[in-house]
C-alpha cells in the first residue's frame, strides 16, 4: 500500500449530498471527506442515515443531489463507470454475504479472476496472502457455513482486500457477532489501519472508534451534526452527541 502523507486531494468526498426514500429525507446535505490513509468512523443513532451515506459512496443508492467523488470517480453522475468505481472501493456488510456455494478460496479468487482477469494460480496465491492477513490460512478450502460468524466476517474482509481496493467501507461489521468474535474482527481492522488502508466505517463500538479512528463523523437525522478527532467522543460539544455517547450503549 502506498503510504503517502494525506494530500489535499481526498480519496472520498461528499458535498451536500441529498437522499430521500419516498417522503423520508434520509440524507439532508451531508458533507465530509476522507484523505488517503485516513480512518473515518461514522457514528450516530439507528436510522440517522449512516448506512445510507456509506451505500451512496459505493453507489448502492443513487443520490438525489450533491456531489460524491471517490478515487476520482464522479459517483453522483449517472454515467459513472460502476465497475471501475467498485474495483477501487471494497465494502463489507453486517451480514457477511459470503457466497455459500463457493469455498473460501473460490469466494476470494472469483472477482480477481473474473473482473481483473488474473490467472488462477496467481489468484490462489493472492487468496493465501489475504487470508493470512486476516489469520484464516487454514480455512482456504472450507465452505462458509463451516466457519463461525467471526471467521466468516474476516473471510469477507479478505475477499474485499483481494481486489486491492484504495478505500474500504465497513457497515457495522461486528454487530451480528458476540463479544469474543467481535474482538477478533476488530483486531483485523486495526491491523489494516496500521498498514495504512483508507477506511470509512459505520460502527456502534465506541471504544473501538475512539482507539482507531483519525476522525469521527457524528450523524443525526440525516445531517453531519458534529465532526472532529476521536477526542470529541470524550468531550462532545453538542447536546445530541453528549446524549448519544452518554447512553453508554455499545450496541444501539
Amino acid at each position: 500500500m502506498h503510504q503517502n502523507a494525506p494530500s489535499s486531494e481526498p480519496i472520498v468526498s461528499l458535498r451536500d449530498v441529498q437522499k430521500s426514500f419516498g417522503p423520508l429525507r434520509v440524507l439532508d446535505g451531508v458533507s465530509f471527506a476522507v484523505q488517503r490513509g485516513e480512518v473515518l468512523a461514522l457514528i450516530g443513532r439507528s436510522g440517522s442515515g449512516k448506512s445510507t451515506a456509506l451505500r451512496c459512496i459505493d453507489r448502492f443508492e443513487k443520490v438525489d443531489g450533491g456531489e460524491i467523488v471517490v478515487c476520482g470517480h464522479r459517483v453522483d453522475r449517472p454515467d459513472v463507470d460502476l465497475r471501475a468505481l467498485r474495483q477501487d472501493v471494497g465494502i463489507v456488510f453486517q451480514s457477511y454475504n459470503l457466497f455459500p456455494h463457493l469455498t473460501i478460496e473460490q469466494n476470494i479468487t472469483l472477482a480477481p479472476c473474473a473482473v481483473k482477469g488474473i490467472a488462477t494460480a496467481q489468484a490462489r496465491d493472492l487468496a493465501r496472502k489475504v487470508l493470512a492477513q486476516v489469520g484464516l490460512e487454514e480455512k482456504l478450502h472450507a465452505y462458509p457455513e463451516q466457519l463461525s460468524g467471526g471467521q466468516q466476517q474476516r473471510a469477507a474482509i479478505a475477499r474485499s482486500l483481494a481486489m486491492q481496493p484504495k478505500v474500504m467501507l465497513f457497515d457495522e461489521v461486528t454487530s451480528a457477532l458476540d463479544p469474543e468474535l467481535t474482538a477478533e474482527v476488530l483486531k483485523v481492522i486495526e491491523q489494516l489501519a496500521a498498514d495504512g488502508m483508507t477506511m470509512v466505517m459505520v460502527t456502534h463500538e465506541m471504544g473501538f472508534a475512539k482507539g482507531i479512528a483519525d476522525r469521527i463523523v457524528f450523524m443525526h437525522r440525516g445531517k453531519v451534526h458534529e465532526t472532529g478527532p476521536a477526542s470529541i467522543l470524550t468531550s462532545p460539544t453538542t447536546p445530541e452527541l453528549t446524549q448519544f455517547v452518554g447512553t453508554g450503549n455499545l450496541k444501539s
Partner: protein
Amino acid sequence: MSLQLDFPAVLERWPSFLAGAVLTLELAAFATVLGALLGTLAAVGRGTHNALIAGASKAYVETIRNTPLLVQIFLVYFGLASLGLKFSAFAVAVAALTINVGAYTAEIMRAGFEAIPRGQIEAAEGLALSRLQIYWHIILLPAVEKVYPALTSQFVLLMLASSVCSQISAEELTAVANYIQSDTYRAFETYIIVAVLYVILSLVMRAGFWGLGLVLFPRRRRLGTPL
C-alpha cells in the same frame, strides 16, 4: 376369463421395446437440456424491468401451463407443416416438449431466483462483478441448487409425458407398445411391460440427476447435506 397372459410372446420383441425406451430417453434428454435453457431465459425475462419481455415471458408460461401437452404437440406439428416447414417427428417432438417443460422450468427457476438473498447480489456488485457474471456465478447455480428436487421431478414428469409423442409418429416407448400390441393383440401384457419400463426409466433418470447433483454442488457432497 378367456384372456390368458402370455408375456414371452410379447417379450420376444425386446429389441423394439429397447429402441423405444432409448428414443424416449433421447427425447427426454434433449428436451431437458433445451427446456432448462429456455425456462431459465424465461425466468430471467420475467424478472427484468422491461415490461414487454416480462409480459411475453408471463404469457408464454401461463399459456403453456394451462393447455394440454397433446394439444401443444398437434399445434406445433400441424402448425409448422401448414407454414410449409417440415421437420422430422423427432425434431418436432423435441421442440414441443422443450416449449412445454420450459414453461414449468421457468416457474421453478423464478422461485429459485427469488430465494437468493439481496445481500448476495450486493456483495457481488461490490466486488465489481458484471451483471452477467453475477447471474452466472452468484444467482444461477445457487438458485438451481435450491430448486433442484423440484426441477428434477419436473424433468422426470416430462419423460413420462413424452409418451404422447406417439401421436405424431415419433417411435418412442408408447408408440412401440401400440404397434406391438396391435401386432400381437396382447394389449395387457404389452402395457404392463411398458409400465415397468417407464418405472425403470424414471428410476434411471432420478439416479442420473442425483449423480449430476453431486457434480454440480460439491458443497453438498462435502458437507453431506441431502439434496
